Each structure stands twice: as structure tokens, then as C-alpha cells.
């Protein structure tokens, strides 16, 4: 309810108390309801460019496609590189080019969902734009948030991105094969994450070689798995 407070200077002050994020949150809830109606489990995948998100999606598709009907939404600023790679792994892909926007939001995902045949789908992998800061504020309606960092990004990826950990269900520490050469302590990255969000599931992977993918699938807790 708006409250109008007269001011002595002749101006009036209006109490709006309008939540700017509520529209996105509302659409995110609608997306979730739509996915639930069709029994589709959605995972929002977040990580910097080069962390291995697309390679992980490719591996998840390869590992899951015999057991589940999998599709993907690939967010990117301007290219179709990721969508092409995921399609080559054997999943239907909807490409979203955000132009310049640094995150997917609930509305852009909603527009992608209407293009998908949700009836023929069990798992939807939503690859967000390569960024670990901006998407924190914009839930898209997924059931699980999976955050990806890699050893080649250095030892401070987790402590420097605390906000994205708040809503994470699973943290993937990728490129475990390169940890030694990068002199990055993966256990320290894990401790950093658990220091922010105790109880967070942390999985080590080498996505390129397919190592850790089954552990990741278990950690995602897909329904009926």
C-alpha cells in the first residue's frame, strides 16, 4: 500500500516499498511450476567462461541419455559454439543469445521453455552465461544450481565468489588433472566452499576425460535416480 507523507519543503514523499526483483522471482516460480507439471528436473549451471560448463553438459548428456530424456538451454552472449557442442553430444538444444546481458533471467528462460517439448523430457540442463557474479541475483526456476570452478582459474575462485555459493546445491571443481601443474589445492577450494555454505556437495571432475561424472549425477539427486 502506498503511503503519502507530506514534507515541510512542499514536496511529498511517497512510500513505495516496491521489490525490484519480485518480477523475476514470480516468473521463476511460474517456470518451476511449468517444469513440475511436466515432471522435468532442471539444473541451472553457472561458471566462468573456460571453467568447463559445456564439456560437463556434454558429459552429462552422454551419461544420462540412455537413462533419461535430456535437453539443454545454452546461454551465450553472441555465439552458438556451446549449443553446437551440446547438440553433438546428442541432446536437443535451445540457444539463447543474450546480446550483451551478463546473465540469464527467468523471463528469457520462460521464452525458451515454450519452444521445448516438455512432455518428452526428464532433465533440462540450463547453461547460464559465463559469469559467477551477476546470475546470483536472478533465479530462473531450476530445481538445482550447480556451480563450476576449475583449477586453471587459480586458488581464489571460491572465496572471491561467495554470493553464488549461497544458492548452490552442488559445487564442481573441474580440471582436477591440472591441479598439480597449476599448484592449486583442490581440498582448500572445497574447504573455502564449505566455509561459506556448510553442507554444500563438492565434486571433483575431469570433464574432458569423463572422470567424476557419475559422482556428479548422484550429487545432483535427479528424481527417481
Amino acid at each position, binding site marked *: 500500500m502506498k503511503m503519502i507523507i507530506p514534507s515541510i519543503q*512542499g*514536496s511529498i514523499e*511517497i512510500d513505495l516499498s516496491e521489490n525490484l*526483483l519480485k518480477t523475476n522471482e514470480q516468473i521463476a516460480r511460474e517456470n518451476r511450476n511449468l517444469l513440475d507439471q511436466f515432471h522435468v528436473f532442471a539444473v541451472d549451471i553457472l561458471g566462468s567462461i573456460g571453467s568447463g560448463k559445456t564439456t560437463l553438459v556434454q558429459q552429462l548428456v552422454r551419461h544420462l541419455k540412455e537413462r533419461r530424456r535430456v535437453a539443454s538451454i545454452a546461454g551465450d552472449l553472441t555465439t552458438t559454439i556451446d549449443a553446437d557442442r551440446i547438440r553433438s553430444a546428442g541432446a536437443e538444444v535451445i540457444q539463447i543469445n543474450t546480446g550483451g546481458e551478463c546473465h540469464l533471467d527467468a523471463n528469457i528462460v520462460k521464452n525458451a521453455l515454450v519452444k521445448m517439448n516438455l512432455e518428452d523430457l526428464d532433465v533440462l540442463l540450463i547453461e547460464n552465461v559465463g559469469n559467477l557474479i551477476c546470475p546470483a*541475483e536472478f533465479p530462473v526456476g531450476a530445481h538445482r544450481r550447480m556451480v563450476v570452478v576449475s583449477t586453471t582459474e587459480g586458488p581464489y575462485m571460491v572465496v572471491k565468489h*561467495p*554470493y553464488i555459493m549461497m544458492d548452490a546445491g552442488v559445487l564442481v571443481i573441474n580440471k582436477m588433472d591440472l591441479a598439480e601443474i597449476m599448484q592449486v589445492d583442490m581440498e582448500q577450494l572445497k574447504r573455502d566452499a564449505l566455509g561459506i*555454505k556448510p553442507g554444500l556437495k563438492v565434486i571433483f571432475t575431469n570433464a574432458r576425460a569423463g572422470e567424476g561424472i557419475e559422482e556428479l549425477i548422484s550429487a545432483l539427486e535427479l528424481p527417481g535416480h
Partner: protein
Amino acid sequence: MHEATLANSIVQTVLRHADEAGAKKIRSVTVELGEWTTFNPEQVGFWVKVGFEKTIARGARVFFKKVEGSLRCNSCGYEGKCPQPHDGMDRMIGLVLECPSCGHPDVEIVRGREAIVKTIKIDT
């Protein structure tokens, strides 16, 4: 630049309400930002002022208030602040989401993630 997205929402919200109230001039705007959001008030403020150019809000003052974070513990029932380490500029260093009372990780954030246009001051 998610600050630009938020700034655009602030500009649209302020102008819409000012128009509904029959404003001729917008003097000031107060925005509340949760301490556990990634929005930097300096940057949001800059983009809001850019958005206000060529509108009745041109030159309006933009004030930001920090909303202190609080959480509820699903284990011991604690509800309240969850103090975080800060630097000398009153900015948070790191983040720890566990119950400050019993240390349990099963907590829900009650406040601290909002972005709200609280008030506008207008001339009619």
C-alpha cells in the same frame, strides 16, 4: 553489468509511480539493498542518474540504505542477524552462512537479498 539491469528497473519504477502521483519533479529516491546482494550502490547510483537524464527525475538525489542480513535456523530455531566480517569501508569480506547460535548449516535467509525502491520525494 547486472547493476545496469537493476538501475533500469529503478528508473522505470520511479517514473511510473511519479507519473501516477502527478509529479512535475522528482527530488529524491531511496533504495534499500540487502547486504547479501551483489549490487554495488556506487555503480547502481551512477546508472540510475544516467537513466534519469531527460526525465522529470533529472538531478534527483539517490540514497541507498543497507538492509542487514538475517537468517532462520531450521535446527535450533534461531532467527536474527548473522554477523559477517567487514573491511574498514563497511564492506563485507567473505560470507559464512551457518547459524551463529548453534553452528548448524541448515539455515534460511530471511532478509539481506532484497532490492527495494523504498520512497520517492516529488513535487506535484
